[in-house]
């Protein structure tokens, strides 16, 4: 039953991503050309409000529904990986006009060719997993 809640949160996220147009190739083109506030507004509001939420949750020591501490796990301080990996992802983000969330959402929207991008992404992750010990982190 509890597992089902993740399916429902995912459905909510899929609807939000579609209606925000963050899944639109056009919006990503517009963002990387700095020609509209749209994407910056979405991410900016999410980050500012999100930071306030994180601060409040920490301050109030809010627990999960099971009474456990919230997952505030810090990101590993692997700055080379962040920069180089981030740049590689950025290349792909602009090429396809989609980041990982929107890939799934667009598939649901009925764009079947997205499946090719998604499978390519799985292969990309698989190759990364195989050669990661040779890469700077």
């Amino acid at each position, binding site marked *: 039953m509890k597992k089902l809640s993740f399916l429902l949160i995912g459905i909510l996220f899929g609807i939000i991503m579609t209606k925000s147009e963050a899944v639109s190739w056009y919006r990503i083109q517009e963002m990387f050309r700095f020609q509209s506030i749209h*994407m910056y*507004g979405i991410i900016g509001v999410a980050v500012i409000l999100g930071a306030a939420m994180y601060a409040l949750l920490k301050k109030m020591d809010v627990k999960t529904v099971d009474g456990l501490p919230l997952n505030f796990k810090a990101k*590993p301080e692997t700055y080379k990986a962040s920069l*180089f990996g981030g740049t590689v*992802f950025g*290349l792909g983000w602009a090429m396809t006009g989609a*980041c990982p969330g929107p890939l799934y959402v667009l598939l*649901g929207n009925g764009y079947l060719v997205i499946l090719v991008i998604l499978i390519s992404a799985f292969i990309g992750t698989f190759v990364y997993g195989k050669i990661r010990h040779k890469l700077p982190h």
Partner: protein
Amino acid sequence: MIETISNPWHWGVSGVMIVLVMFLLLIAGRAFGVSSSFKVVCSMIAGRKSASYFDFDWKDFSWLLLFVMGTIIGGYIAGEFLASPEPVQISQATINDLTALGIAAPSEGLLPKELFSFEYLMTVQGFILFVLGGFAIGFGTRWAGGCTSGHAITGLSNLQLPSLVAVIGFFIGGLFTTHLIYPLLFA
């Protein structure tokens, strides 16, 4: 009600709604980040012995697979029942830039039909954009340890410096593709 939801959402509304998703995942004991699902799918298909990176029990992440399945269903619901009546309202400047590349202004749908087709995939440009682009998404997000959701939204909200560095990387790559690769591919 349905009509209000069906109109394109203001970016402020969308930003607030994303925080709601982040909140729901946090109180459910998880953290918001989509690209981890790639790792889970690899471990599930190739097996945990295929590389140390995939050596974990994918069933521990079944919640994430359910979340991802939900996003697909959510995309279907939004596309089928809540689709906007009008084209994506991008700026005139972007329309002009895209026209110069030979791509028509938005008419219907979220993506340009002339690019997102199996015919276009079979062209050199289509192969580069979608197969290499997809590969870069899978390789890059896992190298960076997150994507737009894990780094740009969750990581920055949690004031993580590695996430800020990753986001700078996202833009270095994205600007390179947009301003250098696109003009070459669509010349």
